[in-house]
């Protein structure tokens, strides 16, 4: 059996009395596309930040690409990792072209000025243009990043995460600010990257209905993984209720996607999945 790209074992994060994550274990194999869902405060963003090495768990063990993630290995392992965090409400006020923002994702950018001057410009241009092409932003490459709309900025950030062709891509609500057309295109792109490039994707999303047709599995998170649904699985009623209380009702599904069992009670706030 191949080594999982992500191996989490008994992860704990936060205070002992109120842990954000508690006894969380998870394995994700190469080429796998996983959606992570859960209520607000369930620890979804924290989980991604721990895998990205931004936060250190108070207990547990993390392996990335078969190597232990710690202070000494973090910088090296991050070379194969792309990370897109939640969109910020406060935008940076730095004059930068779209091209430069994407180029920042290359390791050749964040180096001394001497080495930067000697970089392979042709290769850089190819990589940046390819990443911009993936998110359909090539036409805006010379535009000032600050002048773009929220959705366009999000697509540029995604291009920045993709530009170094990472083996592992961590996305925290990447569809925020995207219109429905670009949301669908995003999921199609991620599916393609997993299938054709063997990229492993972990994506936090709130709208499970939008992702079920594209992902290989959905992890239901609320401090730990309550249920890990694969294609054709049904997420049981009690899992939904534990995550969202009574505010759920639903769902029809087939073997190509993930669904959940119908709930008989009524609710003011309903999530419909089909």
């Amino acid at each position, binding site marked *: 059996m191949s080594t999982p790209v992500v191996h989490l074992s008994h992860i704990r994060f936060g205070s002992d009395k109120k842990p954000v994550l508690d006894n969380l274990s998870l394995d994700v194999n190469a080429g796998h596309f996983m959606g992570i869902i859960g209520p607000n405060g369930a620890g979804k963003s924290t989980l991604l930040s721990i895998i*990205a*090495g*931004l936060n250190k768990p108070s207990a547990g063990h993390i392996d990335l690409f078969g190597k232990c993630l710690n202070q000494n290995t*973090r*910088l*090296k392992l*991050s*070379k194969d*990792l792309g*990370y*897109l*965090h939640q969109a*910020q409400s406060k935008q*940076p006020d*730095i*004059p*930068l*072209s779209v091209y*430069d*923002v994407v180029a*920042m*994702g290359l*390791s050749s*950018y*964040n*180096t*001394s*000025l*001497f080495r*930067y001057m000697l970089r392979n410009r042709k290769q850089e241009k190819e990589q940046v243009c390819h990443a911009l092409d993936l998110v359909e932003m090539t036409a805006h490459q010379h535009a*000032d990043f600050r002048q773009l709309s929220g959705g366009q900025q999000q697509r540029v*950030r995604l291009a*920045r*995460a993709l530009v*170094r062709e990472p083996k592992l891509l*961590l996305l925290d609500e990447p569809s925020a600010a995207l219109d429905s057309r670009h949301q669908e295109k995003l999921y199609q792109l991620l599916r393609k990257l997993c299938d054709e490039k063997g990229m492993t994707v972990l994506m936090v999303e709130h709208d499970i209905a939008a992702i079920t047709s594209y992902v290989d599995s959905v992890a239901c998170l609320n401090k730990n993984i309550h249920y890990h649904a694969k294609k054709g699985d049904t997420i049981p009623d009690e899992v939904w209720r534990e995550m969202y209380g009574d505010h759920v009702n639903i769902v029809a599904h087939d073997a190509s996607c993930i669904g959940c069992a119908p709930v008989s009670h009524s609710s003011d706030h309903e999530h419909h999945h089909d």
Partner: protein
Amino acid sequence: MIDFLSSFFSSPVMQAAFWPALLIAVLTSSMSMMVLAHRLSFLTVGVSHASLAGLGLAVTLSLPLLPTAAITAIIIALLLAAMPNRQGINEDTGTGVLFAGSMALGVILISNANSYEVDLFGLLFGNILTVSEQDSRWITWGSLFVLLSLIMWAKSWWSMAFDMVTAKASGIATARLRLILYGVMGLTVVMCVKLAGIVLTTGLLVLPAACAWFWGRSMFSLWALSLSFSLTGTFAGLMWSYQYDWPSGAAIILMLCVLFMLSWLSSWLKQQLSEV
């Protein structure tokens, strides 16, 4: 005009001030980009005022002024860099506390020193025209160190300013580089004190890049523009100072403010015309 320029450049005082003024102009144009990008304007105010404690210590203990002030400023800047990691105190509050505390210590130390040892006006408002050979040497070595730091880490600092979280995730040692940035900022502040004084130093570390911010579209274009504004402001300010016998630091800051207004006005006009 030619007579004036000839007299300006042949003046022994101006000749002595030329090299340190040039170095500080280059230095501030580069560091001011980082000040604006990382929103460190208040930090530079805090560190420049806090350097009075270092100057007070130097006067009281008969230590060399600039090195003692530099060490104090670097320590204070590093303390401020460490602040966000301490629960309950943010950087803004920390700057306010250290700024007031160090300034108070500096005032008490200097007030107890023999008055002839301290050029208080020079400390507060700067005077590049009284730069000694030792000061000039210090400014030269300090500038080289700051410029070398910029060559090494400017690109990473730029990435961090754009998005600290992604920069960290992509493998930049953000915690270490942030400490270095603050330390280098502390050193730069102290070197600017000789030119603009404690009160006006922030102007040197904000205005050059602020002038360029309207026009630059990349780190390098901003750098080139910031350098042009800084050199123009510094030398035009020194000429003003020479012509009208004004304090050099105030004349330079005033000239940079004029350039900022012109830059802002031209940018606004350009925008209006493009909308017509």
